[in-house]
C-alpha cells in the first residue's frame, strides 16, 4: 500500500481542510471497528442474557440505553451487532472487490468477445435492484449469515468490475505496458506487476463506500429475517423487534438506527475523504 501512496504525496504539505472528512470518517469507523473487535470488553452486559425482571426499561444508570422486550441490555446488543455488521461487510466487500477486480481486469486486458461476454453478464446483475437480487440469491442458497455475506458480495461485483475495467483500460494505453512487453513480460506478470498496482487506488476508495452500503444491506436483510438469525444481535433484526414497541419503548428502534447511521456515515466520509486525497483532478 505504501508503494502506491507515496508518489501521490510527493512534495506537498498536508491540507487539513481536505483531510477533515477523512479524520471524522476515520474516527467513526474506528469506533465501530473497536466495538466490533473488542465487543466482549466494551459491552457492559452479555447480549444474550435475559432478565425478565427488567424488561422494556428506559435508559438508566444500570442500562444506559435501556433494555428490550426480554430484558437484554440494548447498548450491549448494539455493540455486538457491530461485530456482525463489520464481519458481513468485510467478507462481502472482499468478495465484491476480488471478484470484480479479476473480472474487470480480464475484460479490459483481453478485450473482444471476452470483454463483451463478461460486461453483458455484469449488466445483467446490475439490472436487478440490489435488495431483490439479494433475496433471490438467499432464497436459492438458503438463509444464513454466510450466504448473506456471499449474496451482498455478488451484488458488489458488477460495480467493482466496471471500475476495474475502466481503470485498466486507462493503464493499458500507457507506454509502460508496451515497455513491459519489450522486456519479455508475460500477460500474467503484466497484470500483476504493471496493471494491478496502478488500478488499486480507485478500487480501495470504492471499497470504503461499498462498506457503508454493505452495512445497510446486511441490516435490510436481517430486518427481513434473511440475515443474522435471532438471538444473534444485528442492527437490522433489533430494528425489526423495536418496530413492535415503537410507542412504549422507542429506544429499541432509535439505538440500532443511530448505530447504523453513524457507521454508514463514517464509511461514506472515509470513502469521500480517500477519494479526494487520491483524486489527481482535485489536487492543486
Amino acid at each position, binding site marked *: 500500500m505504501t*508503494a502506491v501512496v*507515496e508518489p501521490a504525496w510527493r512534495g506537498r504539505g498536508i491540507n487539513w481542510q481536505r483531510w477533515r472528512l477523512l479524520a471524522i470518517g476515520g474516527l467513526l469507523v474506528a469506533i465501530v471497528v473497536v466495538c466490533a473487535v473488542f465487543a466482549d470488553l466494551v459491552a457492559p452486559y452479555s447480549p444474550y442474557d435475559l432478565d425478565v425482571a427488567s424488561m422494556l426499561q428506559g435508559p438508566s444508570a444500570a442500562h444506559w440505553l435501556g433494555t428490550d422486550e426480554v430484558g437484554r441490555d440494548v447498548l450491549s446488543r448494539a455493540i455486538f451487532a457491530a461485530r456482525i455488521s463489520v464481519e458481513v461487510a468485510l467478507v462481502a466487500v472482499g468478495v465484491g472487490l476480488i471478484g470484480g477486480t479479476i473480472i474487470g481486469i480480464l475484460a479490459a486486458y483481453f478485450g473482444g468477445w471476452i470483454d463483451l461476454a463478461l460486461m453483458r453478464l455484469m449488466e445483467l446483475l446490475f439490472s436487478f435492484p440490489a435488495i431483490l437480487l439479494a433475496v433471490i440469491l438467499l432464497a436459492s442458497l438458503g438463509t444464513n449469515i454466510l450466504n448473506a455475506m456471499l449474496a451482498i458480495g455478488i451484488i458488489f461485483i458488477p460495480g467493482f468490475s466496471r471500475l476495474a475495467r475502466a481503470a485498466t483500460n486507462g493503464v493499458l494505453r500507457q*507506454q509502460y505496458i508496451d515497455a513491459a*512487453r519489450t*522486456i*519479455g513480460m*508475460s500477460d500474467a506478470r503484466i497484470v500483476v506487476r504493471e496493471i494491478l498496482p496502478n488500478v488499486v487506488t480507485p478500487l480501495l476508495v470504492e471499497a470504503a463506500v461499498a462498506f457503508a452500503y454493505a452495512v445497510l444491506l446486511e441490516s435490510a436483510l436481517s430486518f427481513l429475517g434473511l440475515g443474522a438469525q435471532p438471538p444473534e444481535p444485528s442492527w437490522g433484526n433489533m430494528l425489526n423487534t423495536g418496530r413492535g414497541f415503537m410507542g412504549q419503548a422507542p429506544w429499541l428502534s432509535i439505538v440500532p438506527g443511530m448505530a447504523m447511521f453513524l457507521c454508514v456515515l463514517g464509511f461514506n466520509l472515509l470513502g469521500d475523504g480517500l477519494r479526494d486525497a487520491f483524486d489527481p483532478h482535485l489536487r492543486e
Partner: protein
Amino acid sequence: MVRAHCRNDRPPSLAIDRLRVEIATRRGPARVIDDVSLEVWPGEIVGVIGESGSGKTMTALSLLGLMPRRARIAAGEIRLGSDTITHLPDAARRRLRGSRIAFIPQDALRALNPVLRVDLQVGEPANIHRRTPWEQAKARAVELLRAVHLREPEQRAREYPHQFSGGMQQRAMIAMGLALEPELLIADEPTTALDVTVQAQVLKLLREIRDTHGTAILFITHDLGVIAELCDWVYVMYAGAMLEQGPVGRLFAQPAHPYTQMLLRATPTVRTVQAELLSIPGQIPQPFELPAGCRFADRCPHRFGRCASEPPHLGIEDEHTARCWLLESLAASPAAAS
C-alpha cells in the same frame, strides 16, 4: 558481406533479409515495410534514419515481435545471430525480448511504471528470464545503475521514476536493457526527448556499452547529427523502403540518392547560414497508395521517365548503395551521383 570495421568470425547479430510487412486495412493490405534488408554486426552501431511514417519504428517492432495485431510478415526473414526468428511462436518470441534483444524507447519516463521503485524495474528482466530472486535482482539493479554512471546508485535505486531527471530515466532504461547482456540493443529515438547536453551523455554511454560489451546497436532516429556522431553504418528509409545505405563517412560525404542529398541539405548547420530553412516539398506517400515506380519520384527534382514506371533496386553487395535509376543510367561512380 563483411564490413571492413567488423570482426568476421561471427555471423551478424541481426540480419533482415527482404522483409515485407503488411497491415490489413479497409483499403486492402498496406505495405508498411517493403523489401527491407539490413544487417547489424557484433560491436557495430547502425543507424536507421527516416521521417515520420517511413517505417523505421515498425521495423523495430517486427524485430521484437510486437507489431500491431493486424500487421503480419508477408515475406522475408529475420535472423538473430544464427537463429531465424521470423515466424517464432509468441512464447518463444517473448523469451527473446529482454534477454537477447533489448529495446530502449523514446520517452523513458512514460516507459517506467510510476508506482514501482526503479530497482524493481531494472531488476525485472533477470527475474523474468532467469528467475533470479528479487533480493539478488535488486542488488544487480544497483550494479547496473552504477554501470550506466548513475550517481549514488544505492540511494537512487530505491526511488520512484518521477524522482529522476530525464537523463537519469533514460539511463535507467538503458540499465534495464543491459540487464541480461543482450546481443542486440534497439534504440528508438532514445535521445529525442532529452536536451542537447544530456543527449550527448547518453550517446557517449551507448558508445561505451558497444565498446565494453560488444553489443550490436540498432539506432533509430530522424536526427542526422546523432547518426553522424554515433553510428558506423547508416540506412536511409523512406515510405517503408530502404533508399540508400553505406558507411556513415561515405554516405555523408557523397550522398548518392537525391532524397539523402536533400535530407542533408535540409539539416541546418552552423556553416550553412541559410536565409530560409530548406525543406523537401511534398509528402511521404501513404502505404496503401504506393507509386508503381520509385517512391520518392513525386518529390524528386531529378526524376525522369523511368522513375514513375519501374522501382529501382537496391543490393547490399556493395559497400555503399542507393535505390535510384539516376545512378544506373549514369556510370555508378560517386562523382556522377553527386
